[in-house]
């Protein structure tokens, strides 16, 4: 689960001399939210996002209609892009959670993936969500059950042995500290080829653990 497995290789890219009108149309037509700007040899020169394409209304207010036209038509990507030194990027052998952390801390929605100054891919929020989706085996049918358990060593083992005692297989499993109950831990398990009732029957027997959500999906 590294960036290289989830990034989009060969992203669509632009060059600095591209007129801003064309960049905007290109991004709009293909529903792109980020456009890395590269020079020769795919070296990263900057990044264009939808925000960078917004023109400051204050600036336009001081211009008359004819000036606005010439001002806009003369703009190129180079004039508005985030310069390469300000672009926060990552490399392909970083773990996916590390990349997610970089994005959360900087409140940005994409990271160009760079190797030796060259763009090899891009990873975006969508890729992260895709990864979350896959991690929880969203595309497979099964029963998803959430169990609240004390934050004590050995609790997960109890749950897993209860499941394996029934001969069931675990499709996906994840855990987080319970958001609203300090000292507790919430574990989500997805099991297939079983009914909701069987699971409730089997797992409600575990001492100290509580089923807080069961759904078939």
């Amino acid at each position, binding site marked *: 689960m590294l960036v290289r497995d989830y990034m989009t290789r060969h992203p669509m890219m632009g060059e600095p001399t591209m007129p801003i009108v064309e960049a905007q149309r290109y991004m709009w037509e293909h529903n*792109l939210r980020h456009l890395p700007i590269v020079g*020769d*040899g795919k070296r990263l020169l900057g990044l264009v996002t939808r925000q960078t394409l917004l023109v400051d209304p204050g600036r336009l207010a001081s211009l008359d209609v004819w000036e606005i036209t010439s001002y806009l038509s003369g703009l190129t990507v180079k004039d508005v892009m985030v310069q390469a030194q300000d672009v926060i990027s990552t490399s392909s052998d970083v773990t996916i959670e590390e990349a997610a952390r970089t994005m959360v801390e900087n409140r940005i929605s994409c990271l160009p993936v760079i190797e030796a100054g*060259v763009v090899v891919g891009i990873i975006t929020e969508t890729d992260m*969500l895709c990864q979350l989706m896959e991690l929880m085996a969203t595309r497979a049918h099964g029963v998803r059950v959430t169990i609240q358990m004390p934050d004590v060593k050995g609790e997960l083992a109890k749950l897993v042995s209860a499941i394996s005692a029934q001969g069931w297989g675990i*499709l996906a*499993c994840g855990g987080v500290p319970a958001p609203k109950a300090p000292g507790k831990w919430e574990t989500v398990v997805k099991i*297939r080829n079983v009914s909701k009732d069987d699971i409730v029957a089997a797992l409600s027997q575990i001492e100290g653990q509580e089923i807080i959500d069961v759904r078939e999906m």
Partner: protein
Amino acid sequence: MHESHIQDNAQMGPSDGWIPLGKDPLQQPRDVPVLSVERLAVSYETRYGDVPAVRDVSFTVQRGEAYSIVGESGCGKSTVAFSIVSFLGRNGKIVDGHVLFQGRDLVGHSEEELRKLRGDRISMVYQDPMQALNPSLRIGEQLAEVLTVHRGIGQSEAEDRCIHMLEQVHMPDPANVMRRYPHQISGGQQQRVVIAMALLNDPALLIMDEPTTALDVTVEAAVLDLVAELQHKFDTAIMYISHNLGVVARVSDQVGVMYAGTMVERASVNDVYLRPSHPYTLGLMRCVPRLGMDKAASYLYPIRGRVPSPRNLPPGCIFEPRCDFARPVCRQKSPEMCEVEPEHWARCHFAAEILSGKLEPPQDAVPDLQALAERRASDETVLRVARAKTYYEAPSKQLIGGEKQYVKAVDDVSVEMKRGHTLGIVGESGCGKSTLVKTIIGLESPTGGEFEFMGMDISMPVSKRSLDLIKELQMVFQNPDATLNPSFSVGSQIGRPLRRFKAVPAHQVRDEVVRILDLMRLGENYYNRLPRQLSGGEKQRVGIARAIAGRPELVLCDEPVSALDVSVQAAVLNLLLEVQQEMGTTMAFIAHDLSVVRFFCDTIAVMYLGQIVEFGPAEAIYAPPYHPYTEALLSAVPIPDPRAAQKHIRLSGSVPSALHPPSGCRFHTRCPRRLLLPDGGQICTVEPPPWQRNTDEHRIFCHIPLDTLRQMDAVVTIQE
């Protein structure tokens, strides 16, 4: 817990409950095709006005997909590729349509803009690796240049990256290869270097124009494996251009079939091969021999006529003059590309009828091959070659004196040919198959061995042979361009052997030539034509006509159909069969295409490094027990059927030098089956193997016991 998770996923195939990622709006950016060609038209400016080389070609290549364009020579497939990289030459121009690369139009931009726009995101690999490499620069320098010049990477880091890339293309000893010149490595390795060079830029699209056509089947198989592996590793979309239906079936996901400058059918590889809906595609599938077909049980249907010149296209459907289903409407109205079923497009008025089987191709053309079989009942031996040796002297490396060295091109080969039979000789290039044939015909003088032809000794060069002997032994060469004299008319070239051998009285020569031309399906109007006025297939027919004019007993064919397109190849093979039937000629047939050999020959000899390793009837060669080398050849041969599953056997290394052939069994350095013998096949390195007889006619030159060889599975299986 972790383990059970993995196990569960492994048990659960995509069909087993996983919902595929749909056209989720969030996934949109991934769905923009890497390449989208829309109604492309390309013309070349000539003295006679613009020649439309490509018209109305549309297709899309998705991310990470392998798209093949298949068609015969001159159909415009390379022009399509060149128009994508704007490499059309000074007189070529895109006259209509769009080429969208990652959603941006490449048409109508200046060179400089294009260079920026495309950047290093499209790479191309050409047919001949030696033309893509600079012979005067070391491989390391050429590779590193890509990185140092385009990307400004430092020399030493660039070299490290190049070595890493050479490892990715499975180049043995990459650090050493970096220091060599292109001519110091083999053809397959050169092609690997070219592929590595193309991938150094990490392109989104890799265009490969006939990348394996110049390579041997075993090398070709390894290169195709490599391409498939790299495609997944680098997530690169591949556009593959080939005339070889077998190669296309092996590598592609989607196929576009081109004919006379336009695309006539496009669909997934399975649909194109198994459910063709355009008459041309149907014709192509019917004219290639599939592995396992033989001449007694099946027939190749050639496509009649020839490809129209782009300057002189028929008014209606371009395929109408050659089409078996043509109706009046085809002559009047040119069909549009229409979707016969989802994702399956064809350019034919009757595509739906063909697909549903309402229109069947005619079967009546099958000639009666029974007569041929009866005539062939003769058991008389025409040619006997025993322990033949042909050595070439190689200069010794010392300045003065030194021992003479010999390239043992043919070493201890014995074959027999019966009257009216066809012997096929197969093997990689450099295995000595051509030398053997040239020695028999007298173009090379033998170093040793017995050569007996109808009781006469023929171990002398052709200049010492009597005219009668020369008349009985004739040859058809691979390249018809090189064998016909460009300044003599067809009639005089065919007439020459007739006059020289006095086969017919002088005043009847012309009539006889016309008769032979008719037999060749050429007709009298070809009598006065010059070779340059003929197509490739017609030239080869003249070559055959000249060889058979004197009614020889034995015709030696050295790759007679390799230079020809498949539809023409079928016609030439049929012709050779008819000649054989008509005249009862004995034939030796060299080819590297194992399907063709299986189809055409009665007996097959498999050669490796100057020796025959397996000899027997055609059907016995293609079924277990195999010689390990035959097995490897069969597993490498590209089969024009996407359902075919082959055992994966790839020979490591290249063919050893014939100057110093390996001791013991010559194949032991590359043999994948040696380990079946006790103590790792030590015996193979020391002792030459014995001839083991499977049946009276089928013998195998190997140490491995026949019982072990018999237990192996068949190499090729077709999944229904």
